[in-house]
């Protein structure tokens, strides 16, 4: 792989059969503490979800820079904008459903149109939230946020990447959004894995097809690639942790090198990672694509694993999508 925009970051020593499990929200919480120590201008706002978004770590260390807003997400978004307007770097935390949908107009007009460096932490992203059910399983954030000018959208894959992304967000001058989850998820990167906003990470090399994934689906993609490998199919796996700005170079290279692409996300199929990748592929290098995503339906209560299986976003679903896309790549 000679792609200049793709950082080789093959996970070493990761046992896909028995991975270490860690919460991405812990990564957000610890990333904020890293930031709090490094930067005096970082402040944190929360909407009555201190513990469940793990901003409690920041609160304990930096109470003078911690602002409880109560159950008022629209107010919180604009208070954060006001703080940014006078030189602060505000991070706010609430569930992704409220951070994206409920505050969409506040993000659009006040935050993004003014281009203020508001940092939005959307917890409880995806179906993996589990028992809370549909209202609390945010599955529309990628499409909402990436449609708004000036916004950046980051969907880290595990604890370490969430922690690094949180720190990187503060150094970025634009408003941005980070999506993380509730339950422990497999750790597939390490503290030394490079992370740059807008630069995809190559996790596995291959030339038969490319699997482009974000969030918890990066692990599922690695598992799928391993299964495909056993059948002699070599899949490239790209961790597309930034949906906007999208690493078009890495996508174009994947399309050229592999000739077939499967995307995988824990998000609605409309306008998410798959849609973003498809927009790039059709314009730069059209190849067959399959999209593994939630099929335009609301979530429901259940356990993380059974929900992901029921909604068709586990590794076997990626393998089936790979078979479909390869059939189109090499018509029988």
């Amino acid at each position, binding site marked *: 792989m000679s792609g200049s925009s793709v950082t080789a970051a093959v996970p070493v020593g990761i046992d896909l059969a028995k991975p270490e499990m860690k919460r991405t929200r812990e990564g957000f919480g610890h990333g904020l503490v890293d930031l709090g120590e490094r930067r005096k201008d970082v402040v944190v706002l929360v909407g009555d979800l201190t513990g469940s978004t793990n901003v409690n770590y920041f609160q304990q260390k930096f109470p003078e820079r911690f602002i409880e807003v109560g159950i*008022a997400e629209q107010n919180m978004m604009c208070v954060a904008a006001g*703080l940014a307007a006078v030189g602060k770097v505000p991070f706010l935390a609430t569930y992704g459903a409220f951070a994206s949908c409920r505050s969409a107009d506040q993000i659009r007009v006040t935050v993004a149109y003014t281009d203020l460096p508001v940092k939005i932490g959307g917890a409880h992203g995806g179906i993996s939230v589990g028992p809370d059910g549909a209202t609390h399983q945010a599955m529309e954030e990628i499409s909402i946020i990436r449609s708004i000018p000036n916004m950046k959208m980051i969907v880290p894959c595990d604890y370490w990447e969430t922690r690094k992304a949180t720190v990187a967000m503060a150094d970025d001058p634009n408003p941005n959004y980070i999506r993380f989850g509730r339950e422990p998820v497999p750790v597939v990167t390490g503290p030394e894995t490079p992370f740059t906003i807008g630069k995809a990470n190559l996790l596995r090399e291959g030339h038969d097809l490319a699997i482009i994934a974000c969030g918890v689906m990066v692990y599922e993609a690695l598992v799928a690639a391993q299964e495909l490998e056993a059948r002699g199919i070599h899949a490239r796996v790209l961790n597309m942790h930034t949906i906007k700005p999208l690493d078009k170079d890495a996508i174009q290279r994947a399309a050229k090198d592999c000739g077939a692409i499967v995307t995988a996300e824990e998000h609605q199929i409309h306008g998410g990672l798959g849609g973003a990748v498809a927009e790039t592929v059709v314009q730069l290098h059209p190849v067959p694509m399959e999209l593994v995503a939630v099929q335009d339906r609301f979530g429901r209560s259940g356990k993380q694993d059974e929900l992901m299986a029921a909604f068709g976003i586990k590794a076997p679903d990626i393998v089936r999508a790979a078979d479909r896309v390869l059939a189109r790549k090499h018509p029988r």
Partner: protein
Amino acid sequence: MPRLKLSIEELHERALYVRRDIIALLARAQSGHSGGPLSSTDFSTALFFHEMNVNPVRVDDPSRDIWHFSIGHVTPVIYAQMAERGYFPLVDLLQFRQFSGHLQGHPSKHDTPGIEVSSGSLGQGLSVSCGMAMGSRMDGASRRVYCVMGDGEQQEGQIWEAAMFAAHYKLEHLCGIIDYNRKQIDGDVQDVMGIAPLGDKWRSFGWHVIDIDGHDMTQILGAFEEARNTRGKPSVILARTVMGKGVSFMEEDFKWHGVPPSPEQAEQALREMGTSLEEWTERLMGFANPEVAPGMRPKP
């Protein structure tokens, strides 16, 4: 940057110029809002030319007070105040809402230096002002923050989220001003969706409420002083005003909320204000040079 502290007589004169500017720029653009800008002219003149410490030639001056219009649609009065105060040349007002100009229909930070935060979707500005007040206090700044709201805007739920927040955090250096002209696009505010008793609502949310005639300059200056001297809670000024104030055929008529005067109507309005469209447009064009007395325009 000191406050200008113009006399009451001078403030009346400035307010007259601002009203003439509003009519002239609306007549040129043939697009924009007339009613609210005219009703909020007097208290905003007091803000820019007496109450606030602003620095038009260095808009990010760390010692500045902050003003924010949550009612973004009153750009005619915002831009007229900014131009009269020296933020940009008066002639720019003639580019209002034009593609080639820098004066958007609703305030845009990146188009118009001096605008702190873009606005235009109602109900968000008080929250923004809370954030600016909170951040300033964290830095130990002595800055005051002024937020202009509409009375129809009080129907937005987010206003009350922000009202709760400001009182909870005792943002005593935050001052809200409500342009209480009793009119909104669909008619009388009380008919569209009643907001009364507005003063009681704000008091019950923990604010210091100052109820004044929003066209009486003495009462306006007194209200700002009272707000400045209020401790432990934010203040809100209910400025009772008249939509379309200063133009006989616009006063008290909700139909003037969102429309500009025709050239003929503008001529009549300016005649009522002692000038003509040609004379006032020439005055605006005559001060194209921003070097002319920055911070204060000379008399025409």
